């Protein structure tokens, strides 16, 4: 059957794309829109590497169909830096060396931003529970948690 013609907003830009029913939002972002920051780790909603915001809600883009985002607002890792200026979370991940292979990093940063928007001063426990759906097999998480904490401090200072 014919592909779906979808109009949506991605990182503030109006986009149009064609997709098959079985294509996920992650497939569309990476293969059609060439926004390859969101990663495919597990493709089953377990690892969080494909985390994006959908209408302001943190989701795994591998668990959303491309045709479901018609008329909706998608925000990805590509929308976080403002020009050359990194988001405080991106800056803190660099400063803490909170990444090694980097596959999980976009998901952690998108998920971290969703947390800090709701809770500007999270405890370590709150950070760890919020990020429980983001798996990292390199760092052991401590540097990631520290980076989120320090980004929260930086963002509270404005």
């Amino acid at each position: 059957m014919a592909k779906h013609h979808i109009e949506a907003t991605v990182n503030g830009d109006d986009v149009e794309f064609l997709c098959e029913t079985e294509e996920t939002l992650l497939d569309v972002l990476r293969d059609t829109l060439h926004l390859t920051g969101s990663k495919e780790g597990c493709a089953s909603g377990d690892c969080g590497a494909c985390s994006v915001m959908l209408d302001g809600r943190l989701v795994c883009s591998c668990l959303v169909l491309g045709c479901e985002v018609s008329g909706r607002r998608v925000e990805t890792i590509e929308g976080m830096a403002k020009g050359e200026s990194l988001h405080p979370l991106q800056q803190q991940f660099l400063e803490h060396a909170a990444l090694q292979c980097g596959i999980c990093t976009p998901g952690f940063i998108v998920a971290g931003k969703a947390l800090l928007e709701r809770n500007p001063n999270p405890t370590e426990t709150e950070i760890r529970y919020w990020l429980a759906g983001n798996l990292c097999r390199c760092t052991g998480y401590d540097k990631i948690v520290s980076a989120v904490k320090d980004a929260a401090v930086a963002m509270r200072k404005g």
Partner: protein
Amino acid sequence: MRYEAPKSLQGAVALLAGATGETRVLAGGTDLLVQMRADVVDPDLIVDIKKIPETRAITEDRGGWRIGAAVTGAELKEHPRLKQAWPGVVEAANLIGSTQVQGRATLGGNLCNGSPAADSVPALIAAGALATLAGPDGARDLPVEDVMLGPRKLALRRGEIVVSFWLPPRPPRSSDAYLRFIPRTEMDIAVVGAGVSLTLDNAGTISAARVSLGAVAPKVLLVPEAAHAIVGTRLDVAAQQRLEAAARAACRPIDDKRGTTEFRVDVAAVLTRRAALIALDRARTS
């Protein structure tokens, strides 16, 4: 593979009733998309019910609460009055998956996925929730415990969907709780789940109770014997022991890598007692 997102119940029912080939209802997609990806299902038609207003609302209804089948766990958590009335239902739904999964996963999907280990189902059954269905022959209500017949088997007729859940009015001094056991602290499937809802009289004696157990039988169980064991008591030690014995007696679990039969039966007893104590404590202060 066809995708439809009807805006009305009639539209959804007509699509499902008229479909030939394999069809699947899409709510949050946290089970369906995984099953599609794993080639467990390959539907000819997907009917997304999220554009139907009745599936997306949390409303007060006849003294109780009505929760749309496609309301997400995150939305339940952000509803303070619902959480106050039914803390056990909300905490059970919030145990499903990660923050990301909470942004999508729904009560309707958790029930209709047909898993005996579904976390929100024991809490809904303990709550005495009704599932409101829409189908070609009109609407009907089924107690949640009657919706699931066995693993992946539902009592839904052809063309029927779960539209919403109705939670009954809450008398004073009522509350509920849900506990599950998993080998980790987060992000796992229940080895045992226990939901308890109860109401106290003026003197603090339990006047009504419902107890439900998940992951210890082919379907989520309502355990009336466990409720009988504590009604008329103040949940003293003897009543706790009778409650544990009744929970134990109801279990018919499988033996698998996530828990042996003996372990599941033991844990079911312990969790039922602990959930009852939490519900009791909440009811006293509600």
